[in-house]
């Protein structure tokens, strides 16, 4: 074992080697590893992700996002809050009017990017987003989130190139099929016309903020934003979006009275609940007419990806005015297959 102190002096030899090594390490970061942060920033690899941002092609209003709320439902910590943009008549536009991401809640997990069917939301790598305020400063609103496609190509070249190629291919396929869409999609938008979801009955009830609660207006605004954004799964009485809009200080958006789709009949549509599985919905409409069966096959998110709402799309197929059965994007293959099955059954296809 050698004399008593041998191990100790070997240890000192190691520290001496490191001590001397730091002086001869010309930037190889082998022995001297410090980045002097404010002056020299460590280079970020291409895939690195910090917080999401929304991509737009060309001008900011030609954004890819169609407010289909898929990312809002899929986000694990529920930190995204989307409100559909409506024109003066209340007709849903395929654009979000309010798109908030609470970056104090977001855990940068990139699931929203994976589930977005329209490549509208991507991960940024700008990590210097610390603020002084704890409430509103950490909520990024639509204008802060919008960044150009060029910026996206610049920070993530390979990924951006692949996305652009995919979008171009889709656009050509769409143009080749030439199926006109009843909803006049804005010409500038190359992407498939995005569904304009009417915020259906909120999947999860919202907590009401009693009037006499001791909040200042500013805190009340933040709380409302937080509560409606956070899908706290409590059964409580739903705060209708209108009330939420009021408390968030925007101009109150009138409930869409004259929506093209027929109003729900007195009994309501029991199957119109995205939480139910396909098989459960089919059991509910076993004895129902074809239109109801078709509607039950939809993804029930009223996301307007098909240009109508679920009821409208089902009526259009039943009436034969709509032949393309694969427009229900949230439903993906499952809904398309079921629709074909039903149509074959009814002998229409």
């Amino acid at each position, binding site marked *: 074992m050698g004399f008593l102190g041998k191990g100790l002096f070997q240890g*000192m030899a190691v520290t001496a080697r490191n*001590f001397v*090594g*730091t002086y001869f390490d010309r930037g190889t970061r082998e022995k*001297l*590893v410090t980045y002097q942060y404010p002056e020299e920033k460590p280079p970020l690899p291409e895939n690195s992700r910090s917080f999401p941002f929304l991509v737009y092609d060309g001008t900011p209003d030609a954004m890819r996002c169609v407010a289909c709320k898929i990312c809002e439902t899929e986000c694990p910590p529920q930190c995204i809050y989307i409100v559909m943009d409506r024109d003066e008549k209340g007709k849903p536009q395929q654009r979000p009017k309010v798109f908030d991401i609470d970056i104090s809640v977001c855990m940068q997990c990139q699931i929203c990017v994976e589930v977005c069917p329209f490549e509208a939301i991507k991960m940024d790598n700008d990590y210097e987003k610390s603020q002084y305020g704890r409430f509103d400063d950490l909520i990024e609103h639509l204008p802060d989130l919008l960044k150009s496609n060029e910026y996206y190509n610049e920070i993530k070249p390979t990924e951006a190139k692949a996305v652009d190629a995919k979008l171009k291919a889709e656009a050509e396929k769409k143009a080749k099929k030439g199926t006109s869409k009843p909803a006049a999609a804005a010409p500038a938008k190359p992407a498939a016309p995005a569904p304009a979801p009417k915020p259906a009955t909120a999947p999860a009830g919202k907590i009401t903020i009693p009037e006499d609660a001791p909040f200042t207006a500013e805190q009340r605004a933040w709380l409302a934003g937080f509560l409606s954004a956070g899908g706290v799964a409590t059964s409580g009485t739903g705060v209708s979006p209108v009330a939420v809009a009021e408390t968030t200080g925007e101009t109150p958006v009138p409930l869409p009275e004259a929506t093209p789709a027929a109003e729900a009949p007195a009994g309501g549509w029991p199957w119109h609940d995205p939480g139910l599985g396909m098989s459960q919905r089919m059991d509910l409409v076993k004895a129902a007419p074809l239109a109801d069966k078709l509607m039950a096959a939809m993804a029930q998110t009223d996301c307007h990806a098909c240009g109508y709402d679920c009821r409208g799309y089902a009526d259009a197929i039943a009436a034969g005015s709509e032949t393309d059965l694969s427009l229900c994007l949230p439903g993906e293959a499952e809904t398309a297959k079921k629709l074909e099955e039903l149509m074959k059954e009814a002998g229409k296809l």
Partner: protein
Amino acid sequence: METIYQLIAGWFAGKPEWLPLAIAIAVPILFIVGVYPAIFAYTTLVERKALGRVQNRYGPNRVGRWGILQPLADGLKLLTKEDIVPRDADKFTHFLAPVIAVIPSVLLFAIVPIAPGLVPVNLNIGILFAFAISTASVLALFMGGWASRNKFSLLGAMRAVAQVVSYEVPMVLAAVAVVMAAGSLSTLDIVKAQTRGGLEIAGWFVFQPWGFVGFVLFAIGAMAESARTPFDIPEAESEIIAGYHTEYSGFKFALFQLGEYLAAIAMAGITVTMFLGGYLGPGIHIPYIGGFIAAFWFFLKLGCMILLNIWIRGTWPRVRVDQLMGFAWKVLLPMSILNIAVVGLWHFMGNKVLAWGVTAAILGLAFVILAKISAAGNIEKRTYRYAN
């Protein structure tokens, strides 16, 4: 002090008699109070930079060019920090402890020679005075721990007192060996005894076998005395938060640190004086600038000792309390007693080369035996098998 007095006496012939005496006293005091705290300030900086470099990072470089103003910044910060005294602490002792921590460390410098003849106070009981003073630092530790009335600092105080007292004995005995060889307690005579035949380096005690063993024992004792790694049990963060100075903040904490570091530097100074030939080095006899060269040699050696201390601090883990005690009483004490016997033998053996060989053999043998006895107990080679 005497040499300065003779120097100055001539100029002040006319003035009242006590003036040159006052100046002769003031100069060394100003020197000690000025130079050594500055060395302390920059030891902390060098320590943090050296530890940084050992761990592949820079160390403070934001305040001033290479972190030069860092000690100033630390001092200012500690000055402005709020000074918290625990509610049921013993106010008087709580206040007194840091003061008593600093006094002995500063007094220790009184007997450290800087250049030929230039020593603040030429006591002919130099080394004995140094040890007498350094025992007083034990009291500061105890009072600090006892007065802050919290369990952890009490544990820290008990450990600190036990450690310092039990490392006092081997250290004093190691110094006794040197005093026997040099024939006098006064530090100036010890340094003179280390110049042999004009050659300033060959005479150092550290090159004798018993001198080297004495040097190692004294260095270990000094490290334990000032609670530096691997013996920094009193303020072992991982076990009992900060030992006896847990409840101190602001400038009192700075005073404790000042006391500790000054004690470490003073002990390093005494080690240099006794074993590495104080200010001896080539070129100290040049008529005019000899004194400055001597001072340079002294501070160079002092720096090396401090760097060695920092190097060890960056490498070795901490020893447990009972192992620390065992090591002191079972290994250091027998070695130091044997060392004294060997110096006696050395003194009476005429032919120095033969004496060198014999003493080296005896001490080497003793070290191997002691290593076997003390370490055999628990350190054994482990073999590991692999699953099938």
